[in-house]
């Protein structure tokens, strides 16, 4: 076994221990009840995540993290997706990684509060325009739709300065999160009104900051999608073994078998695509953004297609509120809609591929 194999084995073991915790805490029943507002599952999970060090999994040890980089973060997001974990994980963990990458040492205290579980962060949910303006160091206006939590303590958002340039602001909101009702009830989206009285930290010289945040969110969504796709596919296969019609398990029909096989083939391919994106991000490769764009498009599209098929493969029970299939399908559709659309991701990836190709380099070298 060489070094990277033992790191992979360490990550796999970590993934299993995370899954063990989640399987006990984030049961399907807990997720169903959370959706109906009947428990505080997200808060309980967040507390445990902080205690177990998950909130710093990818951060450098100097910032109180576990130092496992993008690969460690990816293991966590896949597990959270697998167990439909509610809470602001994608926004907060992406933000923490982004702050540690681009925002400089003076923001170390923010990162420490995130790692301790004391601060949740909201980030733009989409890629659209917003009308926030920065005038005399104060922010006014309505935020874009944010991905976050009902108790957010920090918003990261682009703002226009007086010359119309785009800056990145870290704002501590005073007013509450205007939560928008979403089809996926496991994550929160909403807006915030800024009245100019908030504490604002502006990133100067933040070249490429927006792209780095997009990459973090893309990788988180792709990981969540692969975990969820695998979970609902496994669950579907078990159902096909037990559901009897025509005096035989429906999973014995070839038409059904072929659809089941295709689910797992699609997962196998897209998992490798995500591995490529995570690896190049950790290597800080010039083409890392291209791969995160391709992984976001590929993995979230695959999740939608898999969750759709899994609901269908269950027949009538899959269409009921009490069953789990719709939870996965809603989460899949939200993952697909968050960040950039697949069309935008493919266009960005195409432009980057052209740039790298013009420079005479290859984006597809593999060390092993």
């Amino acid at each position, binding site marked *: *076994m060489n070094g990277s*194999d033992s790191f992979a084995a360490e990550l796999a073991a970590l993934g299993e221990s995370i899954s063990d915790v989640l399987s006990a805490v984030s049961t399907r029943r807990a997720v169903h009840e959370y959706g109906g507002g009947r428990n505080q599952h997200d808060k309980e999970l967040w507390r445990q995540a902080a205690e177990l060090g998950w909130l710093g999994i990818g951060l450098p040890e100097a910032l109180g993290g576990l130092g496992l980089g993008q690969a460690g973060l990816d293991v966590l997001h896949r597990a959270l997706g697998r167990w439909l974990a509610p809470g602001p994980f994608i926004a907060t963990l992406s933000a923490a990684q982004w702050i540690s990458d681009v925002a400089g040492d003076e923001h170390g205290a923010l990162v420490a509060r995130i790692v301790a579980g004391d601060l949740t962060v909201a980030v733009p949910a989409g890629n659209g325009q917003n009308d926030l303006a920065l005038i005399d160091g104060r922010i006014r206006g309505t935020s874009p739709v944010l991905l976050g939590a009902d108790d957010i303590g920090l918003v990261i958002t682009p703002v226009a300065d007086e010359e119309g340039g785009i800056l990145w602001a870290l704002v501590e909101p005073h007013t509450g999160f205007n939560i928008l009702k979403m089809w996926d009830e496991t994550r929160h989206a909403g807006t915030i009104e800024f009245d100019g009285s908030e504490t604002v930290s502006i990133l100067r010289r933040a070249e490429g900051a927006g792209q780095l945040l997009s990459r973090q969110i893309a990788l988180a969504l792709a990981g969540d999608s692969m975990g969820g796709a695998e979970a609902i596919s496994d669950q579907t*296969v078990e159902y*096909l*073994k037990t559901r009897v019609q025509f005096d*035989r*398990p429906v*999973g*014995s029909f*070839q038409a*059904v*078998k*072929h659809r*089941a*096989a*295709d689910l*797992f*083939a699609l997962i*196998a*391919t*897209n*998992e*490798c*695509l995500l*591995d*490529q994106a995570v690896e190049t991000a950790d290597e800080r490769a010039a083409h890392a953004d291209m*791969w995160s764009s*391709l*992984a976001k*498009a*590929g993995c979230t599209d695959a999740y939608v297609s898999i969750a759709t098929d899994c609901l269908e493969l269950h027949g009538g029970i899959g269409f009921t509120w009490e069953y789990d299939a719709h939870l996965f399908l809603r989460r899949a559709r939200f993952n697909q809609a968050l960040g950039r659309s*697949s*069309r935008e991701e*493919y*266009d960005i*990836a*195409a432009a980057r*591929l*052209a740039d790298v*190709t*013009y420079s005479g380099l*290859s984006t*597809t070298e*593999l060390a*092993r």
Partner: protein
Amino acid sequence: MSAILSQKGDLAAFRSAMREWLGRVVPSDWRENVAGDDDALVDLQRWWLAERAKVGLATAHWPIEYGGEGLEQAHQIIIAEEFARADAPPLRLFNVSMTHLPSTLIAWGSDYQKKRYLPGVAQGTVWCQGFSEPNAGSDLAALRTRAVRDGEDYVINGQKIWSSHSPHADYCILLARTDPDAPRKQAGISFFLLDMRSPGVEVRPIRQATGSSEFAEVFLTDVRINAIERVGEENQGWTVAQTTLTSERGLYAFEIAERQRHWIERFHCRALQDDADWLKDDALRREFMGLFAEAQAGRRLLRKLLRQHDAPSTDRRSAMRSLFIKLTASQLGQRIADFTVRASGLDGQRGDKSRISPGAPMFDFMNSFTFTIGGGTNDIIRNLIAERGLELPK
């Protein structure tokens, strides 16, 4: 020892020695020279294997005692990568010789069989595969070619089909039924090594949908095979054949994926230079990026499979990996070819000499069925994934 093999202790030096040698010997115009000419393609492959043999790279990864150099898998990967990078002629003619035969004989063959047959491969012995029959395709275990014991020999009667390169083959790996009364049809099959020059062997080429003739029917009439040419025990041939069939999803598939990688990069690079129309077509450009991503994912999946040989895993998902590779790589190849046909428009439909061999969109598309149907149709592969991997009931 050749200048390349003498570097085998240092992987980077080994790679650069290979690259230097390939730069000298691979003719840049080989594709044009063999376009639309099956015989020229056979001659080219024989020449190329002989060149490889001169530097010890014909069957370098085999054990030394069977004519190899005993290289590690890391070397094999470099060899396949560099052949792909240099666009060296692929050796489809020797596919069975270099892939199916050694994996089968090293696992199941007798000492006599290994010593007799393996060293010859580096010298250019061509093997073909006699598995499928007109009524035993997807249902391979239903094969009816009979092998009846007669003293020291078996007497073979029957018919084989889809046997690639059999018109050029010296030998054949053959499945035949030794026990027609076995309780399960799989339990009555034996695995043989057949000399194609034996009396009673007749080969009739079949022309394929592409227009080329790579495969043929093989008719066997009272053909005698000595019992020492049986691989494994009598009636154990089905188990032996599983080894044979799995072998092509390893390094063989790896080299194809590496070639595909370079092909895609060259295709894209040429499109940029030519400012190709499809780059400006939003739907086509996005579709291409999806295919590009999947091709890289497929390469990673293959590398996972190859690493698995070092550290075998028993989990269900890993066990399915070689099946996923066959299914996804063949579909991807077909979709890429389908894409290039659409991107090439009316011009891509021209069928003159330069456009009827590998690299031409329509040829690659028509030929893509080789991989979706060959080696077990994809629908059979889906059955195997579902039944063996997902443990869905039969």
